[in-house]
């Protein structure tokens, strides 16, 4: 599977619909402190099925919905879509006839999240498994959060062992 792009609307500081191309090789993301770089990464983990609001730095999952700025009122929902191409390797469970996948997650204030794959509603678990099947996902060891390197060193050996699960 390869990922080709991300569309973010209403997620944290990305109040305007934003397209993020994911291209081959090394893509650098830069900008001043607080401008939204880590928020962008969290949008990706969100659509991959991140179930813990703490892992997204909030005190509730609704904290990922744009809460307003100096000029703009808060929103009532946020939606993130990930575009993927299965390159012929399809698991029978989800969208069995399609190579091109659009995986989206929409959260509505106080109503929770809805997941869709190619327009059709699925469960969070289906999405998490879809990514786990290709050694990816919100908690993949290849998704290194800001400060996670220090956590890995400070971790108890039993906690640290869970990183091997990605290699198995």
């Amino acid at each position: 599977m390869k990922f080709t792009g991300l569309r973010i609307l209403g997620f944290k500081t990305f109040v305007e619909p934003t397209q993020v191309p994911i291209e081959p090789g090394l893509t650098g993301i830069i900008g001043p402190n607080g401008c939204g770089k880590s928020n962008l990464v969290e949008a990706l983990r969100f659509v991959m099925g991140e179930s813990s609001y703490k892992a997204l730095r909030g005190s509730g999952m609704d904290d990922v919905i744009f809460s307003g700025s100096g000029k703009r009122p808060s929103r009532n929902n946020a939606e993130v879509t990930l575009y993927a191409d299965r390159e012929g390797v399809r698991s029978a469970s989800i969208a069995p006839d399609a190579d091109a996948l659009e995986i989206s997650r929409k959260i509505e204030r106080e109503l929770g999240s809805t997941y869709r794959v190619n327009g059709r509603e699925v469960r969070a678990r289906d999405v998490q498994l879809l990514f786990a099947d290709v050694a990816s996902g919100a908690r993949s060891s290849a998704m290194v959060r800001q400060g996670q390197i220090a956590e890995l060193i400070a971790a108890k050996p039993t906690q640290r062992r869970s990183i091997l699960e990605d290699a198995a």
Partner: protein
Amino acid sequence: GRERLLAAFTEVDAHFRSLFTHLFGGGTAELALTESDDPLDAGLEIIARPPGKKPQIMTLLSGGEQALTAMSLIFAVFLTNPSPLCVLDEVDAPLDDANVERFCALLEDMRKRTETRFLVITHNPITMAHMDRLFGVTMAERGVSQLVSVDLETAEAFREAS
């Protein structure tokens, strides 16, 4: 379950040893499964000896040395089972210039060896210079993020503005 974990461990350990020595320009390190006869209950220990230094507990290593050691482990797992996407959020923050260069060389090596697409968030101009392309996140309007394509020269100016 248990055999698969042991097989994974062995392969990760092999990658880890060579990545560590590669990133540190010398020295040795290894992983160890400890504290239990059942590997599914075991802990993962890291024994690291940077070049010219005696082996010591990890806590005595410097901030930058710990970062490189953790990176060796993360990439060792990655090489054992490459994912389509790898996202690194400011992992180069504690590194000096020479180590940032080695980190970037490692990324370029990963880029050749795998089909993985990398998103690298950074404030470091050396890292920026090694990327295939750059996106800038701006807040032209306060509190609102926008994505723009930038080239390296604009990136210089970009970093100054906030």
